């Protein structure tokens, strides 16, 4: 097996035993990036020199016998997570030359373990989109089929993990932006509970929905990366001060699913345009879990039909305010052809932001405007409360919810660019978890007839990530779907 195809867990044991050095592993990953990047376009920046320095430091630490779980592991990071001294562009012209003077809390945590950062990954601009076509710099290709989108907005992260261009990656999920690309690229992606992972240094899209999470090639790897970044952070007032469960040892002990209640939401079967392959894979997954001893129960999430509408009011509203700081005054792009203040603002933001970002800023500004606030933002907030209650009621009847991630496998590049509404509607299975603040995971559950990966989504009650990871691990061990790799 090539070194770049190692799981984090496998690489970890080789690094700790001395069988493999971090520099060797990092060189292999950098070589892989060089080889396939022209065909995949997953990275916005590759930080080869820094990566090798970090790898050398990791080797020194390993030599002292002080290695942590991620010491020497080459990782990629979505380009809206701030990295000190390394450009953080959010895939936007407006931050093209922005170099943060600080690390996000998650980066500090990875550095504390001497993990190796190999580069910053492509995405939809400011995480707004589900295809990674809305990047100002490049269109990332799906490693399984280069004519297909990798999903989004963490498309670069998912494609890089699938194509062996890093051993694991960080993404962010506001309405499905980790789970949906993980599904399209055949990797594991976890959106943690709201408040579980610090948002400090994550460039905000919609502050009440955003969470950072891992994308990996196995559930065990996902647990390793999750535990490294999770936990209370005083710099983020919305992070929650409660202990992170040790799901890794639970995984190691072998998982028993007997008696676990798996909820099947009735409303999700009624979604228009559900691809037959996706429907079949989802049913097969429910059967597999039943065979493993779980009990399937039907549950109802009655406010599901209102979720997309509520989300596309709340998220753009928060975005319209969060993105106000990109005004050309302090940092980033400025339209220098204009002299007056208002003209400079208008010029900077019109030329700095792409069409999808501008569309959402306008949507959000409208929703918050006086005279419309109650009908839009106010109403959407009420719907959000109802959706949260739907999940609370469902989790009284079941331990995990089972659902598709996306209605279809990865679409063709260019297909949805001119139809934003179709793109928004495809978020139906994922965005409710963000509205409700609950954790969700996407794991590979087979391939479509066209050979494209299909993801299975599991969701659990707030802060029950351990439950998700153990259930997902049992499924993975029973099916081995995650072992399928694309030929790049």
């Amino acid at each position, binding site marked *: 097996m090539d070194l770049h195809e190692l799981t984090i867990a496998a690489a970890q044991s080789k690094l700790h035993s001395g069988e493999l050095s971090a520099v060797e592993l990092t060189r292999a990953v950098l070589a892989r990036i060089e080889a396939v990047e022209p065909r995949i376009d997953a990275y916005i920046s590759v930080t080869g020199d820094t990566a090798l320095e970090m790898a050398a430091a990791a080797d020194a630490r390993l030599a002292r016998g002080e290695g942590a779980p991620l010491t020497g592991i080459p990782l990629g990071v979505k380009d809206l997570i*701030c990295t000190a001294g390394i450009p953080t562009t959010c895939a936007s012209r407006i931050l093209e030359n922005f170099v943060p003077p600080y690390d996000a809390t998650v980066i500090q945590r990875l550095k504390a373990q001497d993990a190796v950062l190999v580069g910053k990954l492509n995405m939809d601009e400011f995480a707004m989109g589900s295809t990674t076509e809305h990047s100002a710099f490049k269109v990332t290709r799906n490693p399984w089929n280069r004519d297909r989108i990798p999903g989004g907005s963490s498309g670069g992260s998912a494609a890089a993990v699938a194509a062996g261009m890093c051993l694991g990656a960080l993404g962010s999920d506001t309405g499905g932006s980790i789970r949906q690309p993980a599904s399209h690229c055949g990797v594991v992606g976890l959106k943690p509970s709201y408040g579980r992972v610090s948002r400090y240094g994550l460039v*905000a899209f919609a502050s009440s929905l955003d969470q950072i999470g891992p994308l990996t090639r196995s559930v065990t790897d996902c647990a390793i990366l999750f535990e490294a970044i999770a936990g209370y952070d005083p710099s983020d*007032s919305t992070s929650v001060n409660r202990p992170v469960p040790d799901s890794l040892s639970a995984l190691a002990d072998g998982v028993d699913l007997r008696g676990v209640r798996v909820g099947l939401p009735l409303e999700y079967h009624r979604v228009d345009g559900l691809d037959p392959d996706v429907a079949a894979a989802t049913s097969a997954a429910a059967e597999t879990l039943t065979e493993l001893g779980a009990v399937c129960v039907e549950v109802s999430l009655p406010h599901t039909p209102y979720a997309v509408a509520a989300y596309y009011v709340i998220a753009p509203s928060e975005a319209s*305010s969060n993105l106000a700081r990109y005004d050309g005054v302090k940092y980033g792009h400025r339209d220098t052809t204009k002299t007056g203040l208002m003209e400079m603002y208008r010029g900077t933001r019109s030329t700095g932001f792409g069409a999808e970002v501008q569309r959402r800023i306008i949507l959000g500004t409208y929703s918050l405007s006086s005279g419309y606030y109650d009908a839009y*933002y106010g109403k959407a907030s009420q719907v959000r409360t109802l959706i949260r209650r739907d999940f609370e009621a469902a989790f009284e009847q079941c331990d995990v919810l089972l659902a598709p991630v996306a209605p279809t496998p990865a679409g063709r590049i260019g297909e949805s660019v001119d139809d934003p509404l179709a793109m928004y509607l495809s978020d139906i299975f994922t965005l409710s978890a963000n509205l409700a603040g609950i954790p969700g995971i996407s794991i590979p559950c087979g391939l479509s007839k066209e050979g494209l990966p299909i993801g299975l989504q599991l969701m659990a009650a707030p802060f029950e990530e351990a439950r998700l990871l153990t259930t997902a691990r049992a499924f993975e061990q029973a099916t081995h779907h995650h072992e399928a790799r694309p030929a790049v």
Partner: protein
Amino acid sequence: MQFETIIGLEVHAQLKTRTKIFCGCSTQFGGPPNTHTCPVCLGMPGVLPVLNRQVVEYTLRMALATHCTIARESRFARKNYFYPDLPKGYQISQYELPIAEHGHLDIAVESDSKNESDPDAEPTKRIGITRIHMEEDAGKLIHDDRRPVSRVDLNRTGVPLMEIVSEPDMRSPAEAGAYLRKLRSIIRYLGIGDGNMEEGSFRCDANVSIRPVGSDRFGTRTEIKNLNSFKNVEKAIRYEVARQREILLDGASVIQETRLWDPAAGRTNAMRGKEEAHDYRYFPDPDLVPLVIDEAWIAAARQALPELPDDKRARFIDQHGLPAYDAGVLTASRDLADYYEETVKRCQLPKPASNWIMGSLLGLLNAEGLTIAASPISPHNLADLLTLIDRGTISGKIAKTVFEEMAVSGNSPQEIVAAKGLEQVSDTDAIAAIVDQVWADHPDEVARLKAGNQKLMGFFVGQVMRSTKGKANPKIVNQLLAQKLAQ
């Protein structure tokens, strides 16, 4: 037609915390531009605010001191607008759910507006406080005089402010002034702010309208901004009332608008519509969780409150037997009240202490432009001066000279009296000899005095005092002269 004036005030007071409201940067004034900044107050991508607990503590004290209802749960909201001094493109403030509401404070008013239920009470008036909330300050633009360039200084960005909104309860510019002074006095007593209008740590906007006397409906109001001193607040309101009156008497209507006070021209001018037409798109800030204040916190804050001006004033009347006026002047600031109490503690002469502090001392400080804290005369020395007068060691007249000397040298009155030989002469024999001499030197005046011209008594006292360089005890001089006349 007779009109009634209606005034409501919005005050922004800077809170004297060491660090800013949402980051650890210093709040210190001055400093080279953009040196008291960090990624958080610079509004860089991805950073998050963390509320400074001291800001809540200070605001809570103010809310309790003004009898507000404290919200058990309040929220921060974003006020969205674009301006280069606002790095995030929004200001974090409180909107729908402020920390405190429904408070009040009492101001002293002219005696013709007596409290009807208690005619003996001091004439005071209760002014309602609608709400108090916390927010962050914006930065500062520095405009280049020579080129069309503006520079941005973000040192002030994120400095904590407390906004206090009054009910439209004031009926004259004087009441508005009294309200502001009272508010400032409470802030200073609590030690939570400087209350300095000229330096901008205490800012005020006034909402002004007028209506025909007897009407129960408010007229259209205007909001006046740029009021940078107590004097200007009253002046601007007077101007605005006159302006509105003229409009109404002409049969026209007042336009609801924001007007800027121009202190040089002594008038208010309408702000251009464009600057005014803001839709701030307030919504709850998702980066900050609701602020929860429990009973224990409120109780602890209440416990930590110092004696406030109204209580202190009542105690001064009661304990020191002072007239209400004296008590009011002496408790206007905590420093002055402390100075007074220290003086009285040493000399046990409450009324003379009040007279000397309100008269000579405040006169001196005013003339020198000094605060009471910087007084060249210590309470200790002033008390000793009063004791010297009380014991008859020096006369009141000589005491003025000693006081002036104390102000210059900072020496104790005892030292000055000893060094200059200013001690009062109370030796009856010595004074009697001088009286005899004066009597002998002015036979004509003696004759006229004896004929019944009592006015000449003053002349003889003056002559004796002149011969003793003012040191003779005036009581003894008077006594001896009376005896002489009776002989």
